[in-house]
């Protein structure tokens, strides 16, 4: 057991899979010699050499296209798109190519690849380098979408994603890279499609993802300390496949549900989950579900403004308290 940063967990997860399987290759901008602009891939070039860890030009379409062609023909590429926002310049592969190739070919074509992206706000980068892109990806049948919130989950879910036979968008949170957590020694392999119960409680269920997970946990502690409210906190972790059963079971127990989403409000991942709850657990609910999200605005650069936009510990706990006492 050692304490590891989320950033170092990325490199350890990639190294674990590259050491295990020679078909795993890694490409992206500044990922090799520079060790990544977020320093999340330091040491991989030295460990695995320039044939397996390859710097690319600023050509996001070439990066994702090459990853797909390699995946179709026998490799298991990990591609990095530096800032998640840049998925918009290679969205064809996300929307039209990766997820549809197997279906359109009646099962002939496979696409086992992982696209790692640095997502989310809190770094004061402004509207084009701060977005949460999970819902850009989860809408396409054929794609899987995973977003870890802790170092141990980074390694375990990255391993599961690399070993998965489908294309996976692996959403890392930039504001979590410096966060630390206990990580066991040895190989770590998790499972896609499993939510993680991080705190048990009987009064309400809080669903969160990425950076919103530590904030939801802190809000739950605040609610317990200040108001005697016991919130259950679930890290959704995997949007596709979605562990709907764990969510529904928690709602059946607490009868109240809150989603904490960093994305702008319209069509955030919480909307889909709330719709499932409305369909399948309506009579378990004591009150309408509440979505706590960034407002439907682009993210501003100023720290003061950005902090007002993204759900904070105070906003989460206050939203829950107000709703429960209503």
């Amino acid at each position: 057991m050692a304490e590891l940063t989320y950033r170092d967990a990325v490199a350890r997860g990639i190294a674990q899979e590259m050491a295990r399987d020679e078909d795993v290759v890694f490409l992206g901008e500044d990922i090799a010699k520079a060790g990544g602009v977020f320093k999340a891939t330091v040491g991989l070039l030295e460990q695995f050499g320039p044939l397996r860890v390859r710097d690319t030009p600023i050509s996001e379409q070439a990066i994702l296209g090459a990853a797909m062609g390699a995946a179709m023909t026998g490799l298991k590429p990990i591609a990095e798109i530096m800032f998640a926002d840049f998925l918009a310049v290679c969205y064809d592969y996300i929307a039209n190519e990766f997820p549809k190739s197997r279906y359109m070919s009646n099962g002939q074509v496979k696409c086992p690849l992982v696209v790692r992206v640095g997502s989310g706000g809190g770094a004061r980068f402004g509207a084009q380098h701060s977005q949460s892109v999970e819902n850009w990806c989860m809408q396409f049948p054929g794609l899987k979408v995973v977003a870890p919130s802790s170092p141990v989950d980074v390694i375990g879910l990255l391993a599961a994603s690399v070993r998965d036979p489908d294309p996976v968008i692996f959403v890392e949170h930039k504001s979590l890279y410096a966060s630390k957590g206990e990580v066991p020694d040895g190989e770590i392999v998790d499972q896609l499609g499993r939510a993680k119960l991080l705190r048990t409680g009987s009064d309400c269920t809080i669903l969160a993802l990425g950076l919103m997970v530590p904030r939801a946990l802190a809000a739950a502690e605040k609610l317990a300390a200040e108001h005697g409210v016991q919130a259950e906190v679930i890290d959704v972790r995997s949007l596709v496949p979605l562990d709907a059963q764990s969510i529904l079971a928690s709602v059946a127990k607490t009868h109240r549900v809150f989603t904490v989403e960093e994305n702008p409000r319209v069509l955030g991942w919480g909307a889909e989950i709330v719709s499932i709850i409305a369909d399948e657990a309506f009579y378990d609910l004591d009150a309408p579900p509440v979505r706590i999200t960034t407002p439907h605005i682009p993210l501003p650069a100023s720290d003061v403004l950005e902090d007002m936009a993204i759900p904070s510990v105070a906003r989460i706990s206050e939203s829950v308290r107000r709703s429960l006492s209503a």
Partner: protein
Amino acid sequence: MVVKVGPKGLAAVPPQVERQVDRQEDIGEAKRLELYRLQVLIREAEQRAYDLFLQNLVKGTSHLSLGQEAVAAGCAAAMQPGDLSFCTYRGHAHTLARGVPVEKVLGELMGRDNGLMRGKGGSMHLTSVEHGVMGSYAIIGAHLPIACGAAWRAQYKRQSDVTTCFFGDGTTNIGAFHEALNFAVIWKLPVVFVCENNLYMEYTPIADVTAVASPAGDRAAAYGLPKIVIDGNDADTVYRTMRAAYDRARRGEGPSLIECLTYRYSGHSRADPAKYRPAGELERWKQNDPIKVYRRRLDEMGIAASKLDAIDADVRRIVDEATEACKKAPPPSSDILFTDVYADGGSTWRN
């Protein structure tokens, strides 16, 4: 044989190349008969696809390669087993040229259960991995980077196959073309990019929307590649050029970009009557018809007409039989609607 291109390209004029009797023995009679047969097969199958569309048996859209047969035939004949090809939505020809049965292609166009993908892909997405046909891509430019990835795998795993990527003149104006060319060169990938310049991007003359006369050829220098513009209506020229490019790729010397000048007899898609063509242009190009040119060459080489007639008859029989089989084939069964979304075979995205 590199065609000389004038300042305005060849927008209205077929390639002015001297058509000498080509007796060079580097190709040989067997290969020439294969080239002839492939072109006739593509012509007949494409014509049949059009007829079936007029009978409302082919639904949706289709993009024919009538007039461009020499490119697909010349390239496929130069490939080796195990080589991979990526084509566009105008990909019936390239799929057939790799040996995919006519019935499978027509069945897919007709949305029947005997189709290549059982009706799940359609005309624009023909794929036959067992033949090395790694898919037909309907988003302009998307498959150039994908072809780079397939070639990267060959390079990384030290496998000897070469990847061919077919695309049209219009593709040279989209970003993915430029990203892929640069990428293939800097990584020295075993991929050959084949631009079929049929003079029109969809409905608009390519010369009206392109900064240079040769949409692919004049861009090659930007990536340190030689300008190669060839007569795409001459299957022998295509075959020889591709052989050289494949040899180069297999020697580890990197990619090639080849522009084949040709002409599309039909409109862009079934919805397009091609009224934008100047009067007489189509007729001039038909004088330069790839099958007519090739048959004349074989005649001049002394190959018996009966041999060629037998190929024609055999191809017609194959296309007729495929047509009948497709007409009799049932529609796909409803259970495949939900299969193969994910690798577990199904479409489940949640528990």
